[in-house]
């Protein structure tokens, strides 16, 4: 079986991350219930006429895909696999409120067309004229990990050489309101400085697009090897340590071999216990890294973890704003990532330097 490499990365997030020459050099401290993405100048990536018709999520996805292709020095890929938890939310809200507000009259098709979950994957295919394999996964916090798993399988079996994968989700007003009334979004504003130590229920929501080119050939731009990814629809807190240990064992690794663990803590007092279970016990002596205080929580926030882990492995450094503890790590070669949302759809991902 072939090995699988991350040959390029691209991130549009509530931090200024779209420039790959930087690694959180300048940190934006958000203080709100939702953190909006910092967008690049789109005309560098999308023809303005096309961009005008696209909602934010589509633009972020298409631009991130272009950045990822450029860095991998590719014009074309064999497959495009995207993940999105909520799909094109703004167009969905626009079309749905149109139906309700005007009693099913005076509707135009544009927002319906763009509301389907595979819009971003389809748009990228259209832009690249890529007639290859094209999938969109829509499974909550495992939307991106499903795409990663699928791409890895194809590359290992040499069914493809280069695959563009990505996760994208956008914030939309009505959905934000709804998540506030059910307290999935915190009742109060939270700051990037103290979200992770919050003692209240709910989290802050964010948005963004994180794209990568995965290949079964190493090249100069390569960041890391994707050693393994595993997803679980359910796991209880007391099954977590054992599951993590088994995952390491399957990859012939011990806890000591992990140089850093990237955790998806989002400051929700109800659900961060899953992360704490690992950080306070099995991985208490491991360098712990968190990121959702910078970008907020969304179904495809976890690929931001892959983005920062890739950066870490390549630069051999971890920006202090990401560190939850301070362990002396002489070298950074093996990184474990763990994520879940509200106690469901857990994932473990293992990256190695190369």
């Amino acid at each position, binding site marked *: 079986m072939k090995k699988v490499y991350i040959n390029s990365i691209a991130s549009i997030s509530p931090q200024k991350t779209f420039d790959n020459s930087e690694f959180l050099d300048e940190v934006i401290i958000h203080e709100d219930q939702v953190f909006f993405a910092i967008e690049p100048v789109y005309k560098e990536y999308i023809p303005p006429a096309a961009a005008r018709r696209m909602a934010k999520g589509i633009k972020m996805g298409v631009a991130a895909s272009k950045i990822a292709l450029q860095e991998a020095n590719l014009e074309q890929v064999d497959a495009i696999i995207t993940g999105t938890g909520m799909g094109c939310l703004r167009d969905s809200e626009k079309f749905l409120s149109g139906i309700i507000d005007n009693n099913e009259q005076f509707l135009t098709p544009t927002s319906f067309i763009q509301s389907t979950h595979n819009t971003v994957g389809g748009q990228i295919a259209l832009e690249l004229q890529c007639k290859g394999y094209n999938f969109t996964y*829509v499974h909550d916090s495992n939307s991106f990990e499903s795409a990663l798993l699928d791409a890895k399988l194809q590359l290992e079996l040499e069914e493809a050489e280069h695959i563009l994968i990505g996760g994208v989700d956008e914030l939309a007003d009505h959905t934000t309101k709804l998540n506030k009334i059910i307290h999935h979004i915190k009742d109060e504003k939270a700051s990037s400085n103290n979200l992770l130590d919050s003692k209240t229920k709910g989290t802050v929501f964010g948005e963004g697009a994180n794209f990568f080119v995965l290949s079964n050939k190493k090249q100069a731009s390569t960041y890391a090897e994707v050693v393994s990814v595993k997803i679980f629809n359910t796991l209880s807190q007391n099954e977590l340590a054992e599951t993590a240990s088994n995952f390491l064992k399957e990859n012939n690794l011990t806890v000591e071999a992990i140089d850093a663990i990237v955790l998806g803590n989002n400051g929700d007092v109800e659900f961060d216990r899953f992360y704490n279970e690992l950080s306070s016990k099995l991985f208490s002596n491991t360098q712990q890294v968190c990121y959702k205080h910078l970008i907020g929580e969304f179904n495809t926030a976890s690929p931001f973890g892959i983005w920062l882990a890739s950066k870490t492995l390549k630069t051999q450094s971890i920006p202090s704003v990401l560190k939850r503890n301070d362990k002396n790590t002489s070298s950074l070669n093996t990184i474990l990532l763990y994520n879940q949302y509200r106690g469901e759809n857990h994932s473990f991902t293992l990256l190695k330097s190369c």
Partner: protein
Amino acid sequence: MSQGVAITGMGIISAIGNNVAENFRSLVEGKKGISRISKINTIHKDAIMVGEIEYTNSQLELLLGLTPNNNYSRTGLLGAIAAKEAVANAGIKNIATYKTGLISATSVGGMDMTEQYYYDYLEHETHRRYIASHHAGDSTQKIAEQLGINKSLVTTISTACSSAANAIMLGARLIKSGQLDRVVVGGSDCMSKFTINGFKTLMILSDTYNTPFDENRKGLNLGEAAAFLVLESDAVAKVENKPILGYVKGYGNANDAFHQTASSDHGDGATLAMEKALQVAGYTPKDIDYINAHGTATGNNDLSEGRAIIRVFGEEVPDFSSTKAYTGHTLAAAGAIEAVYSILALQNNVIFPNLNFKTQMNEFNITPQLELKEKTLQTVMSNSFGFGGNCSTVIFSKNQ
């Protein structure tokens, strides 16, 4: 020839029946499930026809033994019914005996509840439990819960109308690569005002019975449905000494890369998907005995698909028919619905008729199968195409 993946169970609920046996009876008897809409109050009710499932949500909840405070969308309810039938049909007593995953497909997800309570949520607490079941993955989590699939690979695919075909494809690949021993694959989509109005604005809804591959076709009828298959590794099927219903022999996925909602004139994506599927199966076009076409009865699809079929099969186009006239277009579930029909065709050596056809299309001279036809079948090809240029083909075979 390449290795197929064994199918050991199937389940379905659609406008033509609440289980596999009822669906088969309707197919053979030529009984359509298309009617005026009764469960959704829409201003378009006299201008459209749909394929509705008889059961109300309360009846489905009762069948599943759910408590009144559950937050299942109709997509989740329908999916759970069909998936449970598939697992029972596969004779599975304890799902945890083998490493079992679930891959489901949906385009609507929990939109049926969201559209009912969109503003009400803000005012009243009564239905707020449904807010968290809006997202597409929720119906899949619910189906996994109903099947007792825990701590496992569970995911959801949404590639518009090709979704469930892709779920079958991914499931087969996960079995072949040894990632899973067993996987339940399929899709579920319920009727919603959102999709009705969406397709209405695209002006591709027929005001009468849909007529696939007919020169005067006026568009599609929307349908709601769910269907699932159980796929098992050879090792499991052998140890358990299971009756095998058929095999997933080939699959192909391609993108038309032409337009967000329309198919290219000559069906480039569809052609590629069919060719790839033949290649994976190790077949030549001559090996296909019957094509269950996507055949939505829109002007664009049937022309594009017909041309693609001719491109792949040349002068020797096998018997083909669309079963959309029975069920309506069941969107993300369609690939799974038609997988069940393809397996029924193989098991019973029968080709289901393309109903409502009157006039030959001008652009080509291929004609769908119009009467129920008995014929020994070894292989069936099933096509599913969707928005976003997503084209998928799955090939089923009777024997390995």
